[in-house]
């Protein structure tokens, strides 16, 4: 009974931490655009908390480089379980167009486990919403 309520609460209230991990801002502003009136993800209880300690869903955009991979790891560690990681955009998935550049490590999944991949360059807000919803499947288990 309690578990049922808890599961429902979890899926109804995914608090989002967005970290720009070396993105070109394209996916970033699309993530922010999700919060704004036209897409309004607060309908699903999603709010941007800006602080790993409060977050449930970790939205990562952009390529990982040698400096920000530590930041990424740190932030991931500070999110309390259960958590979902959503990698956004071609860069977040593989490094995208930059993956051969010297300071690029690659996709987000090289550093932390990723649950959902949202392709696109930049990913559309609709795709990001879909991605988070898909990620919530993990919380239902």
């Amino acid at each position, binding site marked *: 009974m309690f578990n049922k309520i808890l599961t429902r609460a979890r899926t109804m209230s995914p608090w989002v931490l967005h970290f720009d991990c070396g993105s070109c801002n394209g996916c970033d502003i699309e993530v922010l655009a999700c919060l704004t009136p036209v897409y309004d993800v607060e309908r699903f209880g999603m709010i941007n908390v800006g602080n790993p*300690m409060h977050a449930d869903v970790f939205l990562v955009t952009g390529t990982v480089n040698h400096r920000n991979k*530590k930041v990424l790891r740190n932030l991931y560690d500070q999110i309390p379980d259960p958590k979902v990681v959503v990698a956004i955009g071609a860069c977040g998935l593989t490094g995208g167009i930059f993956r051969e550049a010297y300071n690029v490590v690659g996709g987000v999944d090289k550093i932390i486990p990723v649950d959902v991949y949202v392709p696109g360059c930049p990913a559309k807000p609709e795709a990001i919403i879909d991605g988070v919803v898909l990620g919530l499947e993990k919380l239902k288990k």
Partner: protein
Amino acid sequence: MKELTYVLIFLPFIASLTCFFKIPSQVRSFMILTTGCILIVSSLLLIPYVPFAFTPQILFGLGVHDLIRVPDFILMFAILYFGFKHRSLLVIVPAVLQIVLVVWFEIIISSGMIEGQQMFRSVTQAFYCDNLSLIMVLIISIIGSIICFQAIPYMKNHEEHLKLSTSKQPRFFFVMLFFLGVMNGLVLSNDMIVIHFFLAATTLCSFLLIGHDGNKEAIRNSVRALWMNNLGCLAFTVAMMMIYHNLGSTDVQQIIRTPPGTGLSFLALALLCFASFTKSAQFPMQSWLIGAMVAPTPVSALLHSSTMVKVGVYLVLRLAPAMHGSFLSQCIALFGAFTFLAAAGLAVGQSNGKKVLAYSTISNLGLIFACAGLNTPESITAAILLIIFHAITKALLFLCVGTIEQHIESRDIEDMRGLYSKMPLTALITVMGVVMMIMPPFGLLLGKWMAMEAAARNIFVIILAAIGSALTAMYWARWAGTLMSDPFAGKFKLEKQPVVTWAALLSLCAGAGILSIAVPWLYTGLFTPSMSLNYVPPYTLNDGVLENSYGIFAAFPLCLIAVMGFLQSILAVRGATKARICAPYLSGIQTAEHRVFMGPMNQLVKAEAGNYYLSNIFGEKKLTIWINLAAGVLLTLIVGGAL
């Protein structure tokens, strides 16, 4: 009863004289411990006898007044001597004036005795003890003794730290114990001449204690204390003479019984208040108490909690009935409330722990003065509560700061950051002390509550008190938070302290807690009788709930809830020890090392978080002059209003 009174007054004198001579330190410590214990026991034994009054038998054909005359002059000349020694005109002039006045006064009295014997005889009882005096005696004897106990390890440590060749402890403990006797004498006497003697004695004692370390700063501050307090004594002398002129008596009880406005000059009362303000270090005479911080911490503890500064509030509370309903009384309320606010403001701007404590003392005394000035039954109750709980809590905090200071070699709040991980128990006790200063259900807040309800009729007083109270919460909470500011890593290890220190800290802490729970019974047992003569009991008590027509304070139920809440929260802490310990949020660039982040140029930077002292608003340098000015204006108002 008489014997107990003599023990309370004279035992410290005798013990102090023994201390003065070179005796092995173990013997001295033993002496201090026994004296303290005897003082505590006898003060407790005194409770059933109250109220009482008596005059001792004539000794060698001399009355109390005659007995006191010679030491009184000795004291005044001693002050004069120190004035010359430190070449301070500010000491010399009032001292000379005082001697002249006292001589003149003696001549008047003597002549009065020749003309009509009954005039002097109007001092019926030399010693008088009602509940107010009893409360003071209990505070002095118990808290004073505990401070003396704690001073034993403290001074040993202190002198080791200073690497003194010859110990100055004999002199130190001589003055400390002497001080206790003097204080007991002061609160038990009923004759203003005797009180004058004891006042002068406290002045000298505090001078000696502040200057104990003998360095330049100590000397300068001690001289300042001397001249300021001596000025108060002078005011007292003048007031005494005026009262004698008005009433033909120096009997305190008679002064109180004189209805306000009949025969008694308000100017005399105003001067007495001025004397009290100097003793209690109210603005603009606060600097001596702030300067007293250079002394070893037990001295500060003694001065702040149970002795020196309490003399002032005691005197004003004593005299409060005589001012009932007068303009003077209103002015005192305003002055007190202003001090409460101003000192709290200055405390906000301080990072020096002892200075914060000092300003907080001044601030609390201001509130007590405000209560005395409001002069309603509720406010007098509040004042007494504040005196008791302030004494205990402040003594506790000073002893804590002293202990901390000897460990971390700093008294700055910034250096106490995360003290919890170094000295867990001391830090917790300090936090408890802070909590007792500002939170219900503890007695100090109960007093504040009563004071505010009593002050609500006086718009200006309540405005000042409300803002002051918020400022108070601010600087205390900041301090408590700073102490706790550290991550908890596993189990903590108790720090090592002498048994006496632990005993002193824990007993004060427990005492404040238990007394807070016992407030309702304290109220029926001690306060109501203490004011029954002049005031109606303001509250009714049922089931530990204090109530009157306009307020309810559920003292006992609140204590119960607080204890339950505390236990529940402690359980939560125990539960949280199993939780994952995580690094604090540092924007994602924290490193494995605590509080360190990877800064620019790949350098490790320690994230610091200093407290806000808001020095451009609450800075000491900036504010003091304005506050002194305002206080000066208010004082003029008091004296001028009395004219």
